[in-house]
């Protein structure tokens, strides 16, 4: 029997030392790793790399709190904890509430969802909409980078082999209108076929900010500040005249590899519906 190293650190400091020395991969909720390396009934999963079980570090990595620079979400926070925390911005709460099923929402973690970097992962999409940063720690210190820069592509991240994802920081974002929609095949345990979030910030009839973020429509979540700028600064009654230009710019950044017509058309329809609603003077939403 080949010996695969498995560590169970008792503190974050110990986990960081193990990460540095053995490059052990953190195993948190297990909803990705335990499934990927499933061997069968009665058989322990076998990992081709050293792992460390970090699910017991939630005292250090499981808190959600508001600070001066934004909302800090510990890497071990579960979708249920995120969905029920009112300090978390609406699209992230909404995405968390629609992940998997109740039991999965008690085990999966935000750190794992980002670290796994699946193009269909549910949390990176709204986090990227909000310019959230991932906090990475090693024994040598801490660095932060935007989630959008951290996720390089399908299942690829900028995580160094001595680093652990310790949390997420979502900066304060002003928005009067939010949109979030996930298209899945069923209400529970649905892997996203397509997802979209968007926001408007409208002040005195002028679009002060507009953003969109497309999930499961390419190897990674897509945003385009250039496309978003097409609508920013417009008066609400000018928006419909520019919507077509925006939609075609947005379409050009999508690169779905399967069912591209469906994904492009559905993205267009969702964006159009939201933009028309706001442009026609919809009242700011209540996102409690």
């Amino acid at each position, binding site marked *: 029997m080949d010996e695969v*190293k498995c560590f169970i650190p008792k503190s974050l400091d110990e986990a960081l030392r193990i990460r540095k020395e053995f490059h052990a991969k953190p195993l948190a909720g297990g909803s990705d790793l335990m499934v990927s390396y499933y061997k069968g*009934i009665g058989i322990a999963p076998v990992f081709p790399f050293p792992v460390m079980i970090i699910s017991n570090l939630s005292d250090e990595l499981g808190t959600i709190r508001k600070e001066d620079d934004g909302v800090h979400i510990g890497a071990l926070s579960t979708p249920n904890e995120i969905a029920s925390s009112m300090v978390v911005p609406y699209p992230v709460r909404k995405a968390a509430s629609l992940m998997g*099923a*109740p*039991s999965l929402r008690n085990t999966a973690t935000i750190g794992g969802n980002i670290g796994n970097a699946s193009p269909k992962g549910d949390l990176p999409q709204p986090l990227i909409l909000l310019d959230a940063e991932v906090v990475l720690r090693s024994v040598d210190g801490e660095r932060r980078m935007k989630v959008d820069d951290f996720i390089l592509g399908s299942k690829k991240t900028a995580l160094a082999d001595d680093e652990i994802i310790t949390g997420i920081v979502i900066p304060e974002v002003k928005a009067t209108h939010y949109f979030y929609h996930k298209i899945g095949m069923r209400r529970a345990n649905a892997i996203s076929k397509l997802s979209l979030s968007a926001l408007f910030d409208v002040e005195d009839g002028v679009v002060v900010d507009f953003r969109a973020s497309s999930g499961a429509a390419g190897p990674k979540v897509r945003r385009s500040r250039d496309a978003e700028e097409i609508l920013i600064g417009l008066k609400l009654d000018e928006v419909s005249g520019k919507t077509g230009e925006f939609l075609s710019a947005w379409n050009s950044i999508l690169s779905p590899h399967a069912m591209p017509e469906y994904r492009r058309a559905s993205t267009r329809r969702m964006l159009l519906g939201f933009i028309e609603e706001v442009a026609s003077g919809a009242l700011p939403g209540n996102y409690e």
Partner: protein
Amino acid sequence: MDAEIRFTLNGKSVIFIGNPLRRLVDVLREDFGMLGVKEGCGEGECGACSVIKDGKLVTSCIIPVGSVDGSEIMTIEGLREKEEGKCLIDAFADGGAVQCGFCIPGMVLASYVLLRSNPHPTEDEIRLAISGNICRCTGYDLIVESIMLAAKRGEELWTK
């Protein structure tokens, strides 16, 4: 590489010594004889292996035993000894909720977690609470009705 994992199983302190990557479902069934914990999909989606970990519903097929150190685990074998468990089991039997029975331990545990936090659930809330528990026999309606029956009969049990 053996690990020593201590946890509470249905109210009793237990110690597991062995590979910490073994799945909780296997350890519960094979080492502790908790055969009410079923394995269906092995991917955390069907809910047959549901157990309650520190008050929360989880699927034991995706949890390595190394992550339950210090936790309290309850399986159907523990729940059936409690008044709430008896109430649910009787309601499931009387309501005709059980056909092959494979999903039922997980269904009952999911129902218990629901009624503990929400003693008067609507039908939608019940369907959401059991949305991670797949049943291939019943079409769910009799299960939903049985959970409503348990909520009604158990009134004071769920609000205490």
